[in-house]
């Protein structure tokens, strides 16, 4: 079954739940997933709303940044676009530096792209007719899979294959299955969290339109914008935290060695004091 909602005809044929679903007459306003909106179909090729709006968001971001970065200036007067982009890059760099305690250079592109894509598609949901692609489980799963692949890559690059794999045996080899389960479940959590938040905004808007259609949905839309921004931020920050935890183990083991050396030297000092 690839449609989230049965049509009115199917409902009428099947009976039972018809009364409940039909009473709210939600079918025209509510589509849980934009996957179910097929816009164009040709043989096995199928263009649904998710793909269309994903490409729209990507085109918007690419063209906008291309137009702006085409003529950058180093003089005192900046164009508006350049000021916006510079602010964005600086903020993302600062957040990465705060969250990971590392220089942001290597992670800036991945984290920044994730944040910009999710934030743009969530913010554009205020435009009538736009279905946010992040409200589809396929898109969020794809993003989460990107994180799932990227985190080990950064970890291996930082501390080598052996060093990265040894991390799964911490603190003891008994924890190996739990570490693996944790890796998988946090990927699932990333995907479902983003999907659930964006989808719940759409659903609540649809339900409110049938109950209090006049003014209240506007407030919920504004709240949805806030939620969308926070979710984009959280997705990016969580990715950064995961990458940091994959790359930082090396440093913490170094820190432990330093601490152990300091403790040893302290003890030897004490012994010297005890036995002059």
């Amino acid at each position, binding site marked *: *079954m690839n449609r989230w909602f049965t049509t009115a005809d199917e409902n009428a044929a*099947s009976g*039972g739940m018809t009364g409940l679903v039909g009473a709210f007459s939600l079918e025209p306003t509510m589509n849980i997933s934009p996957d179910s909106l097929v816009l164009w179909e040709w043989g096995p090729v199928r263009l649904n709303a998710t793909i269309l709006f994903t490409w729209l968001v990507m085109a918007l971001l690419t063209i906008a940044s291309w137009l702006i970065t085409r003529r950058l200036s180093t003089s005192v007067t900046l164009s508006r676009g350049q000021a916006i982009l510079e602010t964005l890059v600086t903020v993302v760099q600062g957040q990465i530096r705060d969250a990971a305690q590392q220089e942001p250079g290597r992670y800036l592109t991945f984290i920044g792209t994730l944040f910009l894509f999710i934030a743009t598609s969530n913010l554009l949901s205020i435009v009538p007719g736009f279905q946010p692609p992040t409200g589809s489980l396929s898109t969020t799963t794809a993003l989460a899979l990107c994180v799932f692949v990227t985190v080990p890559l950064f970890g291996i690059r930082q501390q080598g294959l052996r060093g990265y794999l040894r991390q799964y045996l911490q603190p003891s080899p008994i924890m190996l299955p739990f570490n693996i389960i944790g890796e998988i479940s946090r990927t699932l959590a990333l995907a*479902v969290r983003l999907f659930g938040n964006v989808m719940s905004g759409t659903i609540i808007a649809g339900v409110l339109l049938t109950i209090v259609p006049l003014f209240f949905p506007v407030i919920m839309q504004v709240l949805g914008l806030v939620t969308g921004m926070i979710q984009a931020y959280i997705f990016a920050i969580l990715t950064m935290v995961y990458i940091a935890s994959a790359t930082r183990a090396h440093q913490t083991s170094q820190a432990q060695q330093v601490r152990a050396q300091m403790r040893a030297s302290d003890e030897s000092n004490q012994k010297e004091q005890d036995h002059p």
Partner: protein
Amino acid sequence: MTELAIVAAASIITAGLTIAIGSIGPALGEGRAVAQALSAIAQQPDESNTITRTLFVGLAMVESTAIYCFVVTMILIFVNPFWNLFVERAGG
């Protein structure tokens, strides 16, 4: 009651219970987290940036529990697999 009616009633009641029980825990936890963060900001206003960021990330983590319950509820109501199974079996 027919089989279909039983499935429908069980799905709807379970959906309500899921979202009701599933939102209690996150609500209590989020309230506690916000209260703690507020008192922390009141004690150390200089650290409010760090506290706010950690608070938001933590709230999102806590809230995802409620979101999981919401997703399960939506599945139970709108894309219930058992419902479709029984409709097919009944030849509806």
